[in-house]
């Protein structure tokens, strides 16, 4: 084992080595996020564009409803809060479904012999590397009213008229699950692979049932992989754009489509879009903070 001193063979060059990464990310990501924060407090110009004048209008629009003419006493505006809430619920449900299908898959793969395992891994990795846009379009094609799914079901006589799936929340849910499923399998697989199966054996020797062993021994041991997988599914689902846009139509807004509409769509309300982005970012940071805390707790336990 190499000690700390040897590990530091390039220690003296640490700063110059890290500088390019810091500069790129600092200049082209951190500063832009701060600029966006400033933008969320600016005034929207009539017909699009911004005026450099401080205003809380964007956040006011998000949280309060002042009636059509803007002269009624403010009520809580539920629309955007509901869009956020629905996005959270949909991301959560997508995470759960991915976990329910992803965990057994990952476990199954990890317990195969080396050769079979490689084939399975390859098969799971391919969709992960296929363009997300193309995967979403494929899903849209499959489930649309006149698509192959409905066509076959009707030919087989299961249904008389097409099941209407496209432009529903269900379709969005399906799309999210489909988009991020590989993200769940791979980290769990990595953890199960590292899991020492003699623990399961010991548990069985003590007459624990198979499912008890799974619950009490395996699951806690591979928990870091499960949490990582959940984060990798939950976070991108929360800000997803393609699934709600292509499968949900312009009516089933999620946070991602709401934000996009402010910039690429007709409304041209940049401060509002910036404010919604800030709120999304805060939400994600809270999730990641919890994750980091659970990680450091785990590190303490070991």
């Amino acid at each position, binding site marked *: 084992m190499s000690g700390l001193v040897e590990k530091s*063979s390039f220690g*003296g060059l*640490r700063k110059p080595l890290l500088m390019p990464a810091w500069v790129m990310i600092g200049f082209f990501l951190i500063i832009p996020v701060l600029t966006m924060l400033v933008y969320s407090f600016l005034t929207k110009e009539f017909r699009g564009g911004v005026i450099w004048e401080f205003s809380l209008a964007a956040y006011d629009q998000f949280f309060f409803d002042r009636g059509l003419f803007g002269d009624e006493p403010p009520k809580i505006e539920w629309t955007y809060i509901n869009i956020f809430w629905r996005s959270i619920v949909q991301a959560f449900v997508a995470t759960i479904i991915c976990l329910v299908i992803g965990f057994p*898959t990952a476990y199954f793969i990890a317990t195969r012999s080396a050769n079979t395992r490689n084939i399975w891994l390859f*098969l799971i990795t391919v969709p992960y590397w296929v363009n*997300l846009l*193309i995967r979403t379009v494929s899903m849209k094609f499959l489930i649309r009213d006149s698509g192959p799914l409905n066509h076959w079901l009707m030919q087989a006589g299961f249904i008389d008229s097409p099941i209407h799936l496209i432009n529903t929340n269900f379709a969005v849910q399906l799309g999210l699950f489909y988009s991020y499923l590989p993200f769940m*399998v791979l980290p769990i697989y990595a953890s199960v692979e590292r899991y020492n199966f003699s623990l399961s054996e010991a548990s069985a020797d003590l007459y624990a049932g198979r499912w008890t062993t799974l619950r009490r021994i395996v699951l806690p041991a591979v928990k870091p992989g499960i949490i990582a997988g959940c984060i990798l599914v939950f976070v991108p689902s929360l800000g997803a754009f393609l699934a709600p846009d292509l499968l949900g139509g312009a009516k089933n807004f999620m946070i991602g489509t709401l934000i996009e509409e402010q910039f690429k769509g007709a409304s041209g309300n940049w401060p509002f879009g910036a404010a919604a982005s800030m709120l999304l970012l805060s939400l994600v940071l809270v999730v990641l903070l919890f994750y980091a805390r659970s990680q450091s707790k785990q590190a303490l336990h070991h």
Partner: protein
Amino acid sequence: MKEKALDQIKRYPGFFPMAVLCLFLLYTPLIIVMIYSFNDSPSITRWGGFSLRWYEDVFFGLEATKLRKAAWNSVTIATMAAICATVIATAAAVGMVRSAAWRGKTASFAILSLPIMVPEIVTAVATLIFFSTIGFKAGYATILIAHIVFCIPFAYLPIAARLEGIDSNYEQAALDLYASRWQAFKRVLLPLLAPGIISGFLLAFIISLDDFIITNFVKGAGIETLPTAIFGAIRQGIKPNIMAISTLMLLVSILFVTVSYFVGRMGETKK
């Protein structure tokens, strides 16, 4: 006997069907699109016999020039972004992994992984606002810069993981023999690190090729990448030629996974 018992303990009924279901779900839409890309009928849902006409359309049809340009943009941006990100990430990985614990190491790691943590749509919005505020005209360069930034962590992770597995005694020995740090890196560390660097490059490349949201926000007038061109086209309906392009891109992805798999294997055997 013991082996068999352990195997029994490892197995859970129902997990195999779940795994099959998982593959089925992942592949069905892709395979359907692949099949229908060979459909002779212009009506997209009726099967009209096998034909390569839509592939012909992609390469020689009316939109061929546009698509070729978009594909060229995609490939050149992905190549450059992946090269830059890999160089930056390799330097950062050596700096992070090959230096003793220091204050701010966690913070530095947080910065490096920031592009993965921040939701893509937020990165897209922030980058658009930033470029427009400083008056940097949207174009090819804005896409390239944005891609380099978000590719850094994807290149970093496999490189750092590989580096952590390489005993530092190797380059330490070289340094003890009066090799300069650069020589120690180039002659000793780099060859050992190569599989990690290649994996990092491939991942960064495919991530850049895949990106739609950020590109769509920061692209300038008249510049398309394949995803933005496809997205623009499917807004008006999924046409068979889109399926042909999709199938081609699917094959490219499979090729990349295969290459990256063999690179990984190469790494294992060398170790």
